């Protein structure tokens, strides 16, 4: 693909670009679903194309094309330059890129089993076996399962001399059991809701998830919810399971630390952030137990935010976001790093596919586990009056990321250290910094899971990106519970 990159860079620089880069991307995906004993969808897709970013007259232009012929590629590069010149008509200042040392590299997601090498028949057999387990439970009215595999190969070349070949794999799987009766629909999902668990791994993830082994329990819980009491309303200590806490991190830490949001670049759609620049290294974001990192490195784990290099050629890094409760870092890019006094990008610029503009995205935004040994059972045993909430059902947060409300699929009331009864329709709400400052216990490493969120939307046109979130079950004191059903 080097020749394609050369065509791009020659045209862009000849026509006046002071900086240009190109991404040539080949994607492949497979999606399989079942519903109530039948295959719901079975599809393969591939997409190949290239895009160009160029700075001309201090402003950005971007163009993308599905045609890799020389004529089309050169026309696309010329279009990016033309667009940049139009951008320069409305600017307040020139774009500044933080320096980055050119690199030549090849990086591939570590994986044991190529998921595309597993036969479709074997995949469908697995899904139908899960489906059968779910529907063996009386009262289940709808059972859905899914398997997803993705492979993305990318060549990134810049006018500064960077040349990176990177291949990323991701795998996802999950299922959901619904029970409709009377005037209620209840559901339970495994390992997580909205598509299950996703990681940058091969087929080995599917074997690790113990999908079939958990299906009967999950279906039984969905039916049992119909006989459970409504979750009480009031102020409680709550314990969040690690998947729900992963989403809490995503919404109330991951998005507000995106520097493009903070700087107003997303104000029209995704919104801004309460984390204005004056709060860096001053705001007590959470209690002293709260340590959050943005870590894209492989050693953090196989999260959906793990890579070798971001989409402007910056190596994966670990940035401390919250350190002993203090707010210490943003997610940054080459264009935005200078606004927080950094001399280098934090390496978080990523794009969906070949045809979208890279933008600041969460990598793996993870709450580090507690240092002292603490299991979920021990955490509950030390709780006098609380609610354990598991598996997200609804999520919402305001456009500055202050006020949030989450609903979960299932709750368990805890009294005097014991799990005493199942409760349905649990929900909680609060203000971000008040919530994180109320954290008083985090389970230890053996309870920590690196969850994948495959569907994070941002940007105009909207792009979908996978992000990672490591979390262990944690306890929050004095949280408002039950507003979602208040007065209804």
């Amino acid at each position: 693909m080097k020749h394609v990159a050369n065509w791009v860079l020659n045209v862009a620089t000849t026509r006046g670009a002071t900086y240009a880069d190109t991404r040539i991307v080949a994607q492949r995906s497979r999606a399989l679903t079942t519903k109530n004993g039948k295959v719901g969808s079975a599809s393969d897709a591939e997409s190949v194309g290239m895009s160009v970013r160029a700075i001309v007259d201090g402003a950005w232009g971007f163009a993308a094309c599905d045609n890799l012929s020389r004529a089309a590629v050169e026309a696309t590069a010329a279009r990016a330059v033309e667009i940049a010149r139009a951008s320069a008509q409305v600017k307040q200042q020139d774009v500044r890129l933080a320096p980055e040392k050119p690199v030549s590299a090849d990086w591939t997601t570590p994986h044991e089993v190529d998921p595309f090498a597993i036969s479709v028949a074997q995949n469908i057999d697995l899904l139908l076996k899960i489906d059968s387990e779910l529907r063996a439970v009386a009262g289940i009215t709808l059972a859905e399962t899914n398997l997803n595999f993705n492979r993305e190969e990318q060549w990134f070349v810049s006018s500064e001399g960077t040349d990176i070949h990177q291949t990323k794999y991701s795998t996802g799987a999950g299922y959901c059991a619904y029970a409709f009766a009377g005037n209620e629909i209840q559901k339970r999902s495994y390992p997580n809701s909205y598509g299950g668990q996703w990681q940058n791994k091969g087929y080995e993830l599917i074997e690790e998830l113990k999908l079939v082994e958990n299906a009967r329990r999950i279906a039984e819980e969905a039916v049992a919810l119909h006989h459970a009491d409504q979750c009480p309303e009031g102020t409680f200590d709550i314990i969040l399971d690690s998947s729900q806490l992963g989403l809490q991190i995503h919404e109330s830490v991951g998005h507000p630390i995106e520097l493009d949001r903070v700087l107003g670049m997303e104000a029209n759609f995704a919104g801004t952030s309460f984390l204005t620049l004056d709060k860096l290294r001053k705001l007590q974001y959470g209690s002293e137990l709260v340590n959050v990192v943005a870590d894209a490195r492989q050693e953090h784990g196989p999260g959906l935010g793990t890579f070798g290099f971001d989409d402007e050629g910056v190596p994966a890094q670990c940035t401390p976001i919250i350190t002993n409760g203090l707010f210490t870092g943003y997610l940054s890019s080459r264009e935005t790093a200078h606004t927080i006094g950094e001399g280098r990008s934090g390496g978080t610029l990523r794009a969906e596919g070949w045809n979208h503009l890279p933008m600041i995205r969460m990598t793996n935004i993870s709450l580090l586990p507690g240092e002292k040994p603490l299991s979920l059972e021990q955490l509950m045993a030390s709780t006098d009056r609380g609610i354990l909430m598991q598996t997200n059902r609804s999520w919402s947060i305001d456009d500055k990321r202050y006020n949030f409300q989450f609903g979960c699929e299932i709750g368990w009331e805890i009294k005097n250290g014991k799990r005493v009864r199942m409760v349905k329709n649990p929900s909680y709400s609060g203000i971000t910094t008040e919530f994180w400052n109320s954290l008083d216990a985090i389970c230890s490493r053996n309870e920590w899971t690196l969850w994948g969120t495959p569907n994070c939307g941002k940007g105009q046109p909207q792009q979908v990106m996978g992000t990672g979130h490591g979390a262990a079950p944690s306890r929050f004191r004095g949280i408002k519970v039950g507003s979602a059903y208040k007065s209804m």
Partner: protein
Amino acid sequence: MLTQEQAADIFDRIRKLSTADEVEVLFSGGHFALTRFANNTIHQNIAEENYIVSVRTAFGGRTARATTNKFDEESLRRVVKASEDLAKVQHPDADLLPMPDTREAAGDVGEGARATQVPSRYFAETAAVTPELRAEGVKQIVGVAQRHKLTTAGVFSSADSLEGIFNSRGLQQWHTQTLAEVSVTMLGEDSSGWQKANSPNVGNLNPLLLAEVAARKAIDSARPREIPAGKCTVILEPAAVLDLVGFMFWDYSGMAILDQRSFLTGRIGTGLFGENITIRDDVTHPLQTGSPFDGEGMRRCTVPLVENGKVSRVVYARATAERMKGSEHKDKVGTIAATGHGFSLPNEMGEMPLNIVFATPDNPQTVDQMIASTERGVLVTRMWYIREVDPFEKILTGMTRDGTFYVENGRVKHGLRNFRLNESLIHMLSNVEAMSVPLRSCGEESFDMVVPAMKVKDFNFTEVTKF
């Protein structure tokens, strides 16, 4: 842009490469360009061209799909093989129907539904919009912001696109369309305002007017005050209505009834909403957009969904209609017929209405008239981050955003800190006291619709945020 003749040629090549009993090919793609601005600067500016060919093969009750954006012989051979390999390992599905022919696709759609032609939605002047023209529009918007000492962010986009479907039973459908869109946010120190509009014809958009309205909202909502959350009268501008009601239309689907995941299960034919609510799906409406055929090539029909508060019927893909006729629900769902609302096969969701049109009320009122008749209430510009809390009572949560105002004694008094809502759509649409003339509206939480502004009593706000 890819032409229908070129697509027909590609379909012939694919057909020859396939050994399947039946073959269907979908085409989509086009040009898309978007100029994005923030902090009074164009900071992102893109253009994209892409075309997709998607092949579905069927072998005696087994079907699957494969997709590529490459049209050379080797890529077409590979995509056909991928589709066939996936299809052959399926278990036969007794519900899978033969692909529709031209006659069936034209539609016999049952009582109350009509199959008609749509007006042209392709405008050459929209397809010809240049980066310079979009920059000129942005410059006007930035000028408004600077005049009012505000900061602006938004988009100006333009696109031309195609959708086509061919199958081995002779069906050919083709649709081309353009769309231009302008969205503007104006930011003050402690307030914001927003407006958005789109149209197939760029000449229908007025960036300057949108900017002025958004700026006025930002100015008028400055120094917002906090009032306690609780039940109150709200005046929802059309975008706010759209953001909320869009969450119920997934349920107006025969498949959702069969799956028992619809809030309409057991409720079709009942007066679920106020008698002033009448809604139809109508792709032919002059303010609507989109293709006149569904994912199998069936003509989209106009379907009455709610008549005077009573849920009248839901929409159907072909196979869903056949399944419904043999189901335990068949006597409780009104007219059962394929309506041309199916997604491309195979899929697990079935169908949904995508061209929602609210009927004009008997005594339409402007938003100003609604304000004038309100003793105490809240005026809402738009909603944000709407999610479903309860699927059967259709309780939604979410936030107000970009222009929330306190109304007292018939006048807008001042801006308010934003609220969190937890409100049932059934409850909301049973408490509508006044509506405006419906107009084409677009938001960020749902698809574009023709909806009115609404004055709603006892709307449930549960919390207040910090701005």
